[in-house]
């Protein structure tokens, strides 16, 4: 496998297209935010990629997570795997995985991902060989962590 095909593994290209958790933001105004609601907007100033993540209480069958963003395939796939992780493992699982993902990203190609912990996010190992793309991969995770933390602190 070349570095390029390691970077753009099929899992990543698929997530970039079929994005888990992507949807229409609820965007409640500041005074209408329910307790336990978090929202985070992050921008990569280098390329203008951006993402908004909302996390919080919902009624019925809706999932507490929804995100909307635009950016490169790495940043969008990264948001999708993060969304999948959150949906499958919940906030606690996500919080355990996030540091491992961050560490993997900074491993300069040398990290061995724990697939049980990271799920599809393990496919991002190849990204760590491309220092210029680490920010793309981490953008969504920063937003997810921030939104979750906000949701917890605004809980009654």
């Amino acid at each position, binding site marked *: 496998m070349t570095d390029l095909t390691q970077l753009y593994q099929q899992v990543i290209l698929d997530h970039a297209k079929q994005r888990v958790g992507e949807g229409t933001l609820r965007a409640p105004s500041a005074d209408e935010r329910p307790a336990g609601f978090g929202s985070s907007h992050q921008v990569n100033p280098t390329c203008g990629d951006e993402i908004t993540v909302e996390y919080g209480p919902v009624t019925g069958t809706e999932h507490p997570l929804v995100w909307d963003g635009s950016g*490169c395939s790495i940043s969008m796939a990264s948001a999708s795997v993060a969304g999948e992780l959150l949906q499958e493992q919940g906030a606690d699982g996500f919080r355990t995985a996030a540091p491992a993902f961050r560490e993997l990203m900074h491993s300069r190609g040398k990290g061995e991902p724990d697939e049980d912990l990271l799920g599809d996010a393990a496919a991002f190992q190849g990204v760590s060989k491309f220092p210029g793309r680490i920010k793309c991969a981490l953008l969504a995770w920063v937003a997810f962590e921030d939104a979750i933390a906000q949701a917890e602190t605004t809980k009654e």
Partner: protein
Amino acid sequence: MDHLETTRVRGDFPLLERTVNGKRLAYLDSGATAQKPTCVIDAEQDFLTRSNAAVHRGAHTLAVEATDAFEAGRSAMAGFVGAAEEEIVWTKNATESLNVISYGFANASAGLGGSDAERFRLGPGDSIVVTQMEHHANLVPWQQLALRTGAELRWLGLTDDGHLDLTDLSEVVDASTRVVAFTHVSNVLGTVNDVPRLVERAREVGAFTVLDACQSAAHLPLDLHGLGVDFAAFSGHKMLGPTGVGVLYGRKELLDALPPVLTGGSMITTVTMEESGFLPAPQRFEAGTQPVAQIVGLAAAVEYMSEIGMDVIAAHERAIGAALLDGVASVPGVRILGPRDPAVRIGAVAFDVDGVHAHDVGQFLDAQGVAARVGHHCAQPLHRRYGITASTRASAAVYTDQDDVDQFVAALRGVRPFFGLDGGTP
């Protein structure tokens, strides 16, 4: 007009020999920063090993030699851009140059600089005009000046085909206008703007003109006196020179009246604990130790380009620009930003690949040895105007050759197929 011997020229640029990802390097990011010829690298090294010393400060031999080299650099630069020596101020980059101008206006507006500086005062009711194609360096400082003074920031929009929209010129630039700041050449669209028309309109209303010459200085013959602008800014690193040095040009009479911005050593006359007097231009704007070795390097770059001839360079880059435009246009699913006529632009071509983000395009190109720039190129409003947030840009310089173009176009052809999209025949 001589024809450029590209092979010989490329031999002067050692970095071009390197490989990237096992491939020949096709460096198409000269719009961001240019590579340096050996003569520039050697000039800096020579200076550092022979004459390095503080300038304008010492009486010893090294200091005299360094001062001579420093001032010879100013003289070379003045000749290169059609200015007088005292009109060339050294800065660290074009961004600093533009900030010095806008802070000069801000300082005057805050009452500094005495009656000489009154002409630079701005306030509520005045307007500053920029354009929608400006690099952030020629936009954000003017936003800040507007914020500080209460003046209104206005702008000229863009046409769909990448030109300044001048239909409303006489409404946008009106009697309230004190400054018209615009780029000579767009760093994204490649468009060469109609400077004479903008200068003419600014003069009609008595506004100062500020030219961002970053993308013209290395690519077109530049005659600042001929263009008649009041101020101009450009960077050494984009014109085959070192990083760390830029130029602020201003008409001598204006520079002597504009309040200084950075203050400190070497720009003063008499300093007491209570107050200080300031030298005339250019020293007025050259506080502290200047980038002497870099100026020596930049002077070598300017000599190098002059020896080839800026008309020869411009013709060469126009041909490369045409080849880039043709090549990009031949790839399906790719939209070119900016004018399609190579005669009205420089050899920098930005484009959008349908369905593939610029970052991914750049990454794929890099794997093929092609260094292109991706992102908003410090021109977010321009990208927003064309409905995108980022683009990919291939930009040429004197050393760019047809092989670079071919390698790039072949790589670009592979982008959409790699990302699972239709790459069919055009």
